């Protein structure tokens, strides 16, 4: 089949969505199809621009490429998933969250901008009217599916996919550190980890890796670490190579992923692939679809003392930590998180 993947590109910003699209494309090609990614540029401010770009997507023609038809269009992100096609499958990574769960939320922007309400209404209506036109509707995670159901009344089946380079993850003897790989910003909550370290019984050590993407946040965390005198137990590794990252996963005692309301969370899956337990928070969203409390890791309240207690549990019982890690790896297999399953469902 000839398959196009429609997604959005924010110029000069690379994120999970690009990786996801590339993974899907590669899997399709490996399965013998011809597949390509079509990216539409997206700028979501000022709000009315969003309307322009929604219309632009409706005007694109991906039903054929040259002389031959395009058999299927897989739409991944708003507004690219609005592009019309008679055989469209939508696999929602995100809707435009600022119009939904981030409306009136400190992390959102739309509610505070001129014409925000009108554009929010327009996004709602477009999603409600046009998403059901797809032959099949999937969501990146139960979290995303639940949001779609709550706000738009539309059903979508969760469809998980493997993180990039899944086969390359490996496991090794656990060493004395917990690992938290992620871009540094408020939503990821590295700061919460730093605060929790002040309350641990054991001398828990943590390694953070990932780029600074929010001005001042890294400095804020380091200041908190110094104030609570836990800075010597923290290593800030910055951006590391993929291989180095996999190595850190392999050697850590466990993985921290206490971020707020994640849509999905490759980190949880990467930890499972490395046979390591995961600590997440009750409001972390995505990770909770994978972490089973006290079987593959721990789920705690998003408060410093609770997180500290969880970190202590792993630190002080290495055997149990290892067992939970193994259980995590088993759960990953049981969930059939592989591209074969994805393709089977997308191309039915």
């Amino acid at each position, binding site marked *: 089949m000839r398959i196009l993947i429609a997604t959005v590109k924010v110029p000069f910003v690379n994120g999970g969505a690009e990786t996801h699209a590339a993974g899907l494309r590669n899997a399709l090609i490996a399965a013998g199809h011809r597949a390509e990614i079509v990216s539409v540029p997206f700028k979501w401010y000022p709000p*009315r621009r969003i*309307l*322009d770009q929604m*219309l632009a997507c*409706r*005007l694109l023609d991906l039903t054929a490429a040259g002389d031959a038809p395009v058999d299927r269009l897989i739409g991944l992100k708003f507004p690219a998933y*609005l592009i019309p096609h008679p055989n469209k499958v939508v696999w929602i990574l995100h809707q435009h969250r600022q119009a939904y769960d981030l409306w009136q939320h400190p992390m959102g922007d739309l509610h505070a901008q001129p*014409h925000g*309400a*009108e*554009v929010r*209404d*327009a996004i*709602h*209506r*477009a999603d409600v*009217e*046009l998403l059901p036109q797809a032959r099949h509707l999937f969501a990146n995670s139960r979290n995303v599916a639940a949001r779609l159901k709550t706000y738009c009344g539309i059903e979508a089946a969760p469809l998980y996919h493997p993180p990039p380079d899944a086969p390359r993850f490996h496991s090794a003897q656990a060493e004395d550190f917990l690992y938290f790989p992620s871009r540094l910003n408020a939503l990821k909550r590295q700061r919460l980890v730093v605060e929790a370290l002040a309350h641990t019984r054991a001398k828990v050590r943590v390694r953070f890796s990932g780029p600074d993407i929010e001005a001042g946040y890294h400095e804020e965390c380091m200041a908190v670490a110094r104030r609570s005198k836990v800075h010597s137990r923290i290593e800030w590794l910055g951006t590391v190579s993929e291989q180095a990252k996999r190595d850190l996963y392999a050697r850590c005692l466990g993985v921290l992923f206490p971020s707020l309301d994640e849509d999905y969370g490759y980190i949880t899956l990467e930890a499972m692939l490395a046979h390591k337990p995961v600590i997440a928070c009750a409001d972390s969203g995505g990770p909770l679809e994978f972490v089973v409390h006290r079987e593959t890791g721990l789920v705690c309240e998003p408060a410093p003392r609770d997180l500290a207690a969880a970190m202590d549990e792993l630190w002080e019982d290495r055997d149990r930590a290892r067992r939970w890690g193994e259980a995590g790896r088993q759960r990953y297999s049981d969930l059939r998180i592989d591209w074969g399953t994805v393709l089977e469902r997308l191309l039915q």
Partner: protein
Amino acid sequence: MLKINWFSPLPPAHSGIAYYASQILPVLAGRHEVVAWTDQDQVAPEFSEMVTVARYQPANPPWRALNDADVSIYHLGNHGGIHGGIWQVSRRHPGIVVLHDLCLHDFFAMVFLRTLERPDLYLATLERWYGEAGRHDGEAFRSGGIGAETMAQRFPLTREAVWGSLGVITHSRSALDDLREKPASPVAALDFPYTATPEARYRGWLAARGAASGPPYRLVVFGYLSRNRRLGALLEALAGLGERQQFRLDICGQLWDESHIRMEIDRLGLNALVNLRGFLPDGQVEQELSTAHLAVNLRYPSMGEASLSQMQFWDYGLPTLVTRTGWYASLPEDAIAFVRPEHEVADIQAHLRAFLADPAAFRAMGERGRQALKKHDLGNYVDAMVQFASSAVALSPRVPVLELAGKIGHDLRQWLHPAASDYLLERASQELFTMCVGKADDRDS
């Protein structure tokens, strides 16, 4: 010089427009490169010798060949059998539409209901221009509840015929006003083309008329005589005229209801004065018109179009009674005797009395009619047509852009929230407008 695709009925089709084409095309072909396209089974051989003729099938026109021309000109009239194929091509291949009739319900009924067998399109078209009422009456028409004449008056469907065209030519200034509405194609009104008979022959006719000077004076009515030709009013007016013996009336042409007319003539006691001549062959027409004194060319209601027969009457220098409506209302006051639709009988009688009082004045009116024909010169007409076509073609980007606007409107209705529609429609319209006409310094004024 342009390369032109011409679509119209051609001789020997029974259509005044075929006659018109046979007059225009040789002149046009003398100045430009013309291909006359036809879906008729037959084309008169002498015509094929004058102008290049090519054949097409309405179901599958040869777009590649058509696209070699600079412009296509389509002639539309009310007859679905004759103009159906032409209209079908015009819809897909934008060009200049020349409207020979303005009330086109008969045309669309035949094309949609009989030729294409698409009642859904028929009803959708009525709804598109006239709303729910149009669809409703269309359904009634199909089941025989409403007659064709009523439908023709209520739903002329003129704009359907010209939708998506590059430009529209009519021969009637009143039609011009009707069609100048958004979204519009450029529209022009040209003087109906007619080549006057040479002076020498005309002098011969004047002599003949002079010899047959009367009284009694010969009144003449010509053509396809349906109810809107106001024969009833004419007969009544004549019957009510004290001086009626001074007149004779020749009714020449096909009557819509001959028995009814005969009964009227009987009832009004006009048997001695009125002669039903039937359809006259060409040779007798000349005899008839050259010796007539006054033509009666009433129409009410008018379908708006120009009248070839009026040109002919003027050619013969015949003063004429016409109804002040539609195209006729724009004729020069001093070359016509007007009859008001709401005072037919009285006005006819007034003119007849005026004629008796001063026949010379009416002869002079006829002469002025003959002079008025000069404006209708074929060469001028052809040049005006081509000039209009060229300027309309320069505006052609309008056509696909407007079609796109329609498509967008349709799509947006599906998913655009009303709160956002003002903004987005305005935004899209801005860009579409620029795509239609360019930016200020590029535009023709």
